[in-house]
């Protein structure tokens, strides 16, 4: 049941990303909401669920994009690998880990897409792409990590934790 919910949430997020977010550009770019949701899901709910939801999210992005199906899935793989930093206990909170993973995952995600575009025959200006798109998108994704992390945390029993404190 939890994976049905995850699939619907990721699909709706992908649809919002392709139809709503382009109308509200920030620094000239739109956030990659699906990637951010995958990061939050992985950090909050752990590796086991991430192993299922990351392929679903990657496929949703692939099927709604103009690049060959599979490229977005390939670019989303590092989300889980980077989240494993959490097992090293380098960060004091999971939220900080989510923010760091969102930034790094976005950089790698965009880099993989750039390489894919180049292999497809598109002309790629590496420095311009880095300055104009890759870094701004990564920053915007970090900003959007805060509300999405909160939503996933609430969905994962965060509300109960708040009540127990009160």
């Amino acid at each position, binding site marked *: 049941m939890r994976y049905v919910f995850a699939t619907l949430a990721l699909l709706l997020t992908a649809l919002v990303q392709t139809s*709503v977010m382009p109308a509200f550009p920030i620094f000239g770019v*739109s956030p990659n909401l699906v990637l951010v949701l995958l990061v939050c899901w992985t950090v909050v709910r752990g590796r086991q669920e991430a192993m299922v939801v990351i392929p679903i999210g990657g496929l949703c992005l692939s099927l709604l*994009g*103009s690049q060959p199906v*599979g490229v977005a*899935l390939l670019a989303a793989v590092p989300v889980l690998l980077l989240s494993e930093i959490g097992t090293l206990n380098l960060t004091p909170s999971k939220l900080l880990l989510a923010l760091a993973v969102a930034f790094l995952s976005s950089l790698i995600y965009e880099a993989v897409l750039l390489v894919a575009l180049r292999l497809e025959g598109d002309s790629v*200006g590496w420095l311009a*792409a880095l300055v104009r798109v890759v870094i701004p998108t990564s920053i915007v994704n970090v900003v959007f990590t805060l509300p999405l992390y909160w939503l996933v945390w609430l969905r994962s029993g965060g509300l109960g934790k708040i009540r127990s404190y009160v």
Partner: protein
Amino acid sequence: MSSRLGTWTLGVIGLSLVLILLSRAGAIDPFQNAFLSITSPVQHGLRGVADPVAGWLSNVRDIGDVRSENDSLRAENEQLKNQVATLLNSQSQLQELQRLLQVEQSNPNEQYLTANVLAKDPNSLKEAIAIDRGKRDGLQEGMVVVTEGHSIVGTVTKLFDSYAWVTLVTDPSSAISAMVEESRAEGVVTGSYSRKLSIDFVGQGAVVKNGDTVITSAIGGLYPAGLVIGKVTKVGGGPQDLFESVTLEPLASLSHLETVLVLTSFVPQKLVAP
């Protein structure tokens, strides 16, 4: 890294590569077409909510400029009315001359197909939109897409049965043979990651000024001549530069497109040098 994580990583990378190969061979196109068909009503609904809000926000942001813009539009309107009168006169003279000389018009019946914009590519590195017309409607790769005001939007780059992806003129991979309407200076309009357009290869001697209109030229055979691309916003370049540095703004509001027209009567041709 645990063996389970390693297996998962290799498995997903392998799956991705298989999907990429299948997708490039066109084997996944029917699934992608079906997926877009199923999700298109939701995308229509979401866009129907988002576009008015975005329009309202844009109006609020631009409210300070409305008065000066109004003044300049009044002046431009007056100027355009004069031009229309002159052009109507010229047109009737031209028609009369064509009748006398029995000259055929080059594009007597341009045909357009209306399409709704479904979505934008989720990848910020790519400027592309999905439209609800595809192979079934007679679309071909390379066909030119314009706005209802007939300024250029982009070209069809990927086709499914009922849908197509259109790469916008602002995409960094886009390159269009163009000319400045006023001075007839020729160059190549290219897109960029900043979503602005520039004209490359305009010689230093060419007369280009702010506000000039840039249109397509037929050189290369990929675009019909005379479609409006945009207005010049900045002209630069030092005296030692070989070419002028010209920046322009697309005339079409590419971030708020709802309906576009596909020029079906023009089939692009790849011209090869002799």
